[in-house]
């Protein structure tokens, strides 16, 4: 049997997992895993799924059921980003970082490899059943990575991981219910039959199905109000795990929602599906959920005092942009949403690598106990600077391009409030990321950090490579827009007509090489004015400072970090009420109470009778 590239990729992913399980404790295992991910990435680039769908040679078949896997352009796009994220995460953690890591190396490598394999299985799903199987595998593999948390936040992280598990199991039940309904309607798990079933489905049932899928997949994407678990669960995991989780794992929810909402149900159907007693449609509802997912977590990030948590909360918010673009369904909007997934993966990987490099050197990421590191870790600072510019969506980085597409799509679609809300999210991001870079790298250097070194090259190279990718794809977005356009085509969405520089149309154009060119020319002019004219600058020592007329010695701590936006918090501080925590706790309490009541009732009465009745009802429901 000859192997096609898809089979080869699965084989490599499986071999990687096997190797890590067997020899994951070996010191060079991290490098070996990195090579495996590199080989998988090369294999992915051996085929072009926009030309033809790639089918795997293996499958499971019996008299009634056939399961097989395939890659279309959408799956390929997500797979490229997933494997690339694993490659850089593994690379970052393969060298000096691993030597200091006190946890189980085997477990860490195996969990990462398992995640990649599970995600590839999910992405290659060809029908509802393989989608469900892949989803379950991804959920449990993700839990493995989250459960690796150690250190001071271990308890918090494990609680969050368990909470995620509850969401994942509840979501899985919702998905299973939806899949069973679709199977009953079309007598098949195939996507074609599901499309046909959705096309003739009554509005109430369609609402039910959409909500079930939204609940099932939305928990992974951490859509409001299912978002509380993600930040602690992702933040406390060891560096490579946190990077991989933060960069791409949550986006599996986006992939699955794209398949269901855009491919199977259709955005136009969602647009026509009215929410009873309101003027909203299903599309509006999802768009508003996405926008709330942008705003609330972003402003929660603003309050964080740990760099990892700050970035994790932003990760939740950025997922909102992706879903918002996708659900608009226009060529520009959906391209923006999918492009943001690529851009954000590179951006978040860069940012998390920079933050974990700081943690590697100083031992923590507490924003109130750092500062002034730019003089000691200039390259890490550069990476973080490029990352925050991209996260904030400013030129010349790639984050700007995808957000520009989403804003422009909202504008063209006549959605002023969504537009306003999404820009408010961006403004909050700018405030938040400035606090991040200021409290880490600017301001006063603490005495105990005077002797620390730059991050090792094993960390710097992947960090700067990701930052460079985010820059290059910002300056020439056409390099990746081809992938996005092919993915749009696979989803049955309108396909974006793109150029190397972005978009060219009468209503809105973006030519990034020119924008980036004039920006750097402007910097050139600024540099000539600053360095070429006037007196010679004298650089003073970083610790040579004074304030209010008093000289400050290095041991006196004057770095302004806590309550950074005091004026703003004076106004909006009371808005942070923890309502979602309250909601979550009340739901948990209610479920606990109901479970206790049911338990008591069951034990008090005739258990055999209730068991029989429940079984009969279940059977009747399944059969009828």
């Amino acid at each position: 049997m000859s192997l096609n590239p898809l089979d080869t990729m699965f084989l490599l992913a499986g071999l990687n997992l096997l190797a890590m399980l067997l020899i994951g404790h070996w010191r060079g295992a991290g490098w070996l895993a990195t090579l495996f991910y590199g080989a998988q990435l090369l294999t992915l680039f051996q085929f072009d799924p926009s030309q033809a769908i790639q089918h795997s040679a293996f499958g499971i078949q019996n008299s009634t059921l056939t399961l097989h896997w395939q890659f279309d352009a959408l799956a390929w796009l997500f797979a490229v980003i997933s494997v690339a994220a694993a490659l850089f995460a593994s690379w970052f953690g393969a060298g000096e970082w691993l030597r200091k890591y006190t946890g189980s190396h085997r477990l860490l490598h195996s969990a990462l490899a398992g995640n990649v394999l599970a995600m590839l299985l999910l992405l290659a799903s060809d029908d509802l059943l393989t989608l469900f199987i892949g989803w379950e595998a991804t959920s449990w593999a993700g839990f493995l990575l989250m459960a690796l948390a150690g250190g001071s936040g271990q308890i918090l992280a494990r609680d969050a991981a368990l909470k995620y598990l509850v969401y994942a199991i509840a979501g899985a039940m919702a998905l299973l219910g939806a899949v069973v309904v679709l199977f009953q309607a079309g007598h098949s798990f195939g996507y074609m039959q599901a499309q046909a079933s959705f096309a003739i489905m009554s509005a109430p049932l369609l609402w039910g199905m959409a909500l079930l899928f939204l609940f099932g997949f939305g928990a992974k994407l951490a859509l409001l109000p299912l978002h509380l678990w993600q930040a602690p669960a992702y933040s406390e995991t060891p560096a490579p795990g946190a990077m991989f989780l933060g960069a791409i794992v949550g986006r599996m929810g986006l992939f699955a929602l794209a398949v269901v909402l855009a491919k199977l149900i259709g955005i136009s159907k969602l647009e026509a599906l009215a929410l009873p007693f309101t003027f909203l449609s299903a599309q509006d509802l999802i768009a508003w959920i996405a926008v709330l997912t942008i705003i609330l977590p972003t402003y929660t990030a603003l309050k964080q005092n740990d760099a990892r948590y700050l970035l994790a909360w932003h990760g939740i918010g950025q997922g909102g942009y992706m879903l918002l673009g996708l659900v608009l369904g226009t060529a520009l909007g959906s391209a923006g949403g999918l492009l943001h997934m690529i851009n954000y993966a590179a951006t978040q990987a860069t940012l998390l690598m920079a933050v974990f490099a700081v943690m590697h050197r100083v031992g923590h990421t507490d924003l109130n106990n750092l500062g002034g590191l730019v003089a000691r870790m200039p390259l890490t600072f550069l990476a973080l600077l490029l990352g925050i510019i991209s996260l904030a969506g400013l030129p010349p980085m790639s984050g700007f391009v995808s957000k520009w597409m989403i804003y422009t799509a909202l504008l063209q679609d006549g959605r002023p409030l969504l537009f306003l809300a999404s820009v408010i999210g961006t403004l909050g991001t700018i405030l938040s990321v400035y606090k991040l870079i200021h409290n880490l790298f600017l301001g006063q250097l603490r005495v105990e950090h005077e002797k620390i070194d730059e991050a090792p090259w094993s960390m710097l190279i992947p960090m700067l490579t990701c930052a460079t990718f985010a820059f290059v794809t910002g300056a020439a977005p056409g390099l990746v827009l081809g992938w996005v356009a092919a993915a749009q085509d696979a989803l049955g969405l309108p396909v974006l007509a793109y150029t190397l520089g972005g978009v060219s149309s009468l209503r809105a154009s973006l030519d990034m090489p020119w924008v980036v060119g004039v920006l750097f020319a402007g910097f050139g002019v600024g540099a000539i004015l600053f360095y070429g004219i006037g007196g010679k600058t004298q650089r003073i020592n970083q610790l040579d400072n004074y304030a209010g007329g008093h000289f400050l010695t290095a041991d006196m701590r004057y770095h302004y970090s806590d309550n950074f936006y005091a004026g703003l918090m004076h106004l909006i501080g009371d808005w942070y009420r923890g309502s979602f925590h309250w909601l979550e706790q009340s739901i948990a309490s209610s479920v606990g109470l109901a479970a206790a009541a049911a338990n008591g009732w069951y034990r008090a009465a005739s258990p055999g009778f209730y068991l029989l009745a429940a079984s009969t009802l279940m059977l009747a429901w399944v059969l009828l």
Partner: protein
Amino acid sequence: MNLTELMIELVLMPFVAFVIGLGMVLMMRKIAARLQRRVGPPFFQPLYDIVKLYAKRTQTSHGMVHDIGIVMAVGGYVAAETLLPMPGMNGIADKGGLITLMYLMMVPSLGMALGVGQCANPNGSIGIGRALTAMLAYDVPFVIVVFGVAWHFGSTNLVSMIEIQQAGGISTWGITQMPLLALAGLFTLHGMLGKQPFEVYIAPAEIATGPMVEMSGKHMGGLFVMQSFQLYTAAALYVTLFLGGGENWLFFIVKCFVVLAVPVSLAYLFPRYRTEDMVRLMWKWPVLVGLVGLAFVMR
């Protein structure tokens, strides 16, 4: 247009913007002086100030980011000018549009914030915290204005907006078609300039508690240049969106100066707002006016 002409425009546009901006700095000081019954500075004073600051013998730098922040602050505006059409010169306005310009205008703020942060002076950092909060305050109504204008003209292309307004005359100007948005825009412009009563983050009267605390010599000179660009950019953008752009140089310059004169004249009549009060104000009246204006535009 061939490449050579475009390159000439790209060089000329920031230069012209800077010269007009210097004139605006002069006008601003003159207005302040007259309101305070002073004579005010001589014609070339803004230029003298820049030369003086750049030529100072003591030039203190707190590190590379301190310097690069100033380079970004100036460079960001130099780039922004090439996206903002002038009479006879469109630069690369059709390659970016309004949203790109809006975001490019944030690059100088980021540069200044980085430069100030590197100085390790807590008062400077407090000033930046306030400045970014102010940005959050005035950008909310600004975004509403941007959306309304782009919706009205059916495009984010600034060249198209000017063409539509100039082809139809005053009755098609943004200010005639969208008076409420124009009012909200003027409010936003005032906040954006950081003039009284919204100047708490610059703190010009008590330099030791604002972002300028560690700025001297070339650093201050760079920020002075940035201010010239900022005044021009804000005024020219308003003229482009609401006053038909520039039919010719005379009209364009007059319109720009008149637009700027409004907030500058009002500035000295009010006491200072605290940061949170500025946010409260900006999120209330200009937002309300803007939303009502937007409703009319989209009706």
